[in-house]
């Protein structure tokens, strides 16, 4: 067992992060945008875990718990907003939903 280099773990996190970013920038459907956000958050969590295991510090895993909490909160609020928008506009296309009122 030679072990996994820390860089590889981080590069995996970066690749996932950039994929999420591309999804965020390209997709017009709000559902996909939310999922891209989840991917990005997840990649951040991965980076924390890599750090935690690399230096055998529990703080990294504690941070991971917080990231999950944040992801849960974000997903619930984002999905609730999405439901409302869908009921109002009958679409999830962000290009259509670009007007603020009030």
């Amino acid at each position: 067992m030679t072990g996994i280099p820390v860089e590889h773990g981080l590069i995996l996190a970066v690749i996932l992060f950039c994929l999420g970013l591309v999804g965020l920038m390209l997709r017009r459907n709000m559902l996909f945008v939310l999922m891209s956000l989840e991917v990005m958050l997840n990649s951040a969590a991965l980076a924390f875990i890599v750090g935690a295991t690399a230096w055998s510090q529990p703080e990294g895993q504690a941070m991971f718990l917080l990231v999950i909490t944040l992801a849960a909160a974000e997903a619930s609020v984002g999905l609730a907003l999405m439901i409302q928008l869908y009921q109002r506009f009958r679409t999830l296309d962000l290009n259509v939903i670009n007007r603020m009122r009030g």
Partner: protein
Amino acid sequence: MELAFYLSGLVAVLATVGVITGSNPVHAVVYLIVSLMAVALVFFALGAPFAGALEIIVYAGAIMVLFVFVVMMLNLRPDEPEQAWTHPRYWAGPSLLALVLLVALVTLIGQGEAGGTIEGELLTARAIALTLFGPWLMVVELAAILLLAALVTASHVGRRRSARDTRGGAL
């Protein structure tokens, strides 16, 4: 262990590509679950079984179920093919940007002196708990408040609007 790490890492990347390019919401959600599972396997491979378990239970379990529920509730059909989607003019810019970012980040990581390897030694849940409920207690409380706030917000924003409300309510 290395094999598990690289394999599941590859699966995670491929599944994520599936998420961001797919047009069927249900398929995309499933891809995302696969991706999260793969990341959980990565955690196991890295020697963080507690985090991996949480990833599967909370992320792939609870949060993704929420997505599935919403997709079912709104009865979303597959996206109508986006006309400009396939056109390079549409995706070239953002993709290039992301690629540049990727290269920059990888370069930065390569320049770094992290240097070590992960041997996969276990970090037990006990150590994490001691950290969390010891010096990090306040952060846990804040996280709890955050969840409560999210709960209230979601239940307020997500309620079905009566006809009376539709006219001038907030949002």
